[in-house]
């Protein structure tokens, strides 16, 4: 779903409980993460409920980010679905230019990004940002060679 559409949908929900209700549905609709990708390397640290994140650049031209993820927390899974919608298909440079706090504030979900949450979602966000930064510098080096 497009971000604008999602924003409109969430804005129509009068309180946070209803927004979480909607996010739970998003999590349920998320394509399952291939089981072979759920391992120690993809496990997200700092989570109360186990969560996994895997991804990198895809084959498209120019190469774009593509992440898959999962969590035993239905809410974290739903929040990841939003994250995937924001970042997947973007080049690393485009991803780095995104102001995620602004995106989540507009969705009425600002508190989900609080580092205090320790629900694994914050760690997912950090990992995606780090991956985007390192891929961006790699592609920059590649193009300069």
């Amino acid at each position, binding site marked *: 779903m497009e971000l604008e559409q999602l924003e409109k949908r969430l804005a129509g929900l009068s*309180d*946070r*409980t209803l*927004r*979480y*209700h909607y996010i*739970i549905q998003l999590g349920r609709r998320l394509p399952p993460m291939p089981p072979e990708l759920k391992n120690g390397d993809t496990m997200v640290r700092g989570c*109360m*409920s*186990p969560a996994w994140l895997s991804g990198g650049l895809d084959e498209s031209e120019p190469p774009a980010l593509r992440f898959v993820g999962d969590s*035993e*927390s*239905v*809410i*974290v899974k739903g929040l990841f679905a939003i994250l995937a919608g924001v970042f997947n298909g973007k080049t690393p440079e485009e991803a780095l230019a995104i102001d995620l706090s602004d995106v989540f504030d507009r969705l009425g979900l600002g508190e989900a990004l609080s580092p205090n949450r*320790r*629900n694994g979602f914050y760690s997912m966000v950090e990992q995606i940002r780090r991956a985007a930064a390192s891929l961006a510098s790699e592609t920059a080096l590649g193009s300069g060679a």
Partner: protein
Amino acid sequence: MDTVAALDVAAVRADFPILDQRVDGKPLVYLDNAASSQKPRQVIEAISAYYMTDHANVHRGVHELARRATEAYEGARERIARWANAESADEIVWTRGASEALNLAAFTLGQSRVGAGDEIVVSDMEHHSNLVPWQLLAARNGAVLRHVELTSDGRLDLDSLASLLGPRTRVVALPHVSNALGTINPVARIGRMVREKSSAAYVLDGAQGAPHLPLDMAELGCDLYAFSAHKMCGPTGIGALWGRSALLAELPPYQGGGEMIAHVYRDHSTWTTPPHKFEAGTPNIAGAVGMQAAAEYLDDLGMAAVHRHESSLVGRALALLSEVDGLRILGPTAPEDRAGVIPFVVDDAPAQDIATILDAEGIAVRAGHHCAQLVLDRFGLPATVRASFYLYNTPDEVDRLAEGVRLAVSMLRQ
């Protein structure tokens, strides 16, 4: 005859300005008291008044403000000693909180009593604050940690404890009340077991005991008792270690600096007497003043009344929550055996998701391991939801918790 006066909860709530607010449009229900309690106006005003009129450094100046600050600080020590029914104010060592009090206990007992091959008894019920300091000590001195096991209803297994006590036991360190299970431990009875079978120092982590139960150091039968102000309506950053005079006199200093010396030479120093021997540096004077105000506040209400109020909330919560399909409450089933802590899990509904939805409903609880990973390991759980009550919580709030849990479970299970 029952002489415990009932708590006037509406009047109590009026003393806590923070409770009167909405979260996302819904009235705040604060049920994270085992993590930290809220502060009444009386405590906030005492701290403010101290800074407005009396502050200076303690024990040093000859001027009026230094005198007033010292009187406030030492007066607070006397008040806390009375509140805990200690024999003298010299038995109260100020610390940053229960964690520092337990670190102080572990460090100083490590210097004076624990050697290679000696044994330290803890339990699988410990908050990490009463576990990690002893692990550090065991690693430092080559001592051995022994763990009291838990029964399936979340009590200390006293047979397991009895089997661990012996001539090599130097320290027995246990919680008065479990922060992760709510269990009130039979600490006086355990004290008698410890004395019969060993010459160990008996240390109690009172972080969850002091705020909720009438305290009487003579009755508890321990040698050291650690507690924090912030869980008993006082400010953060202050707490105390109560110690038997003879033991405090035996223990070496914890940290070096001003206040704790008798005389300083070029290559060594001599120590002043307890409690100041353990209090290097400028202390948290305003914190002590705030903790005194908290103890006075609780004393005015009566700790027996506070405990009875919490017990009635716990009884109501146990009844309402156990009606939720698939919900399991950890810890003893009898309300009289537990303090105001209710940890629970629900089939097919992750603890953190329940807590997130409760937060959206304005209900503050905690989800996780509650700094007591051994407890969760014992029950094979990754996390629990923990609701914890205090003197200002109401039966209506317990009802809202139960409704919130039902709502969360129905959303998560669809």
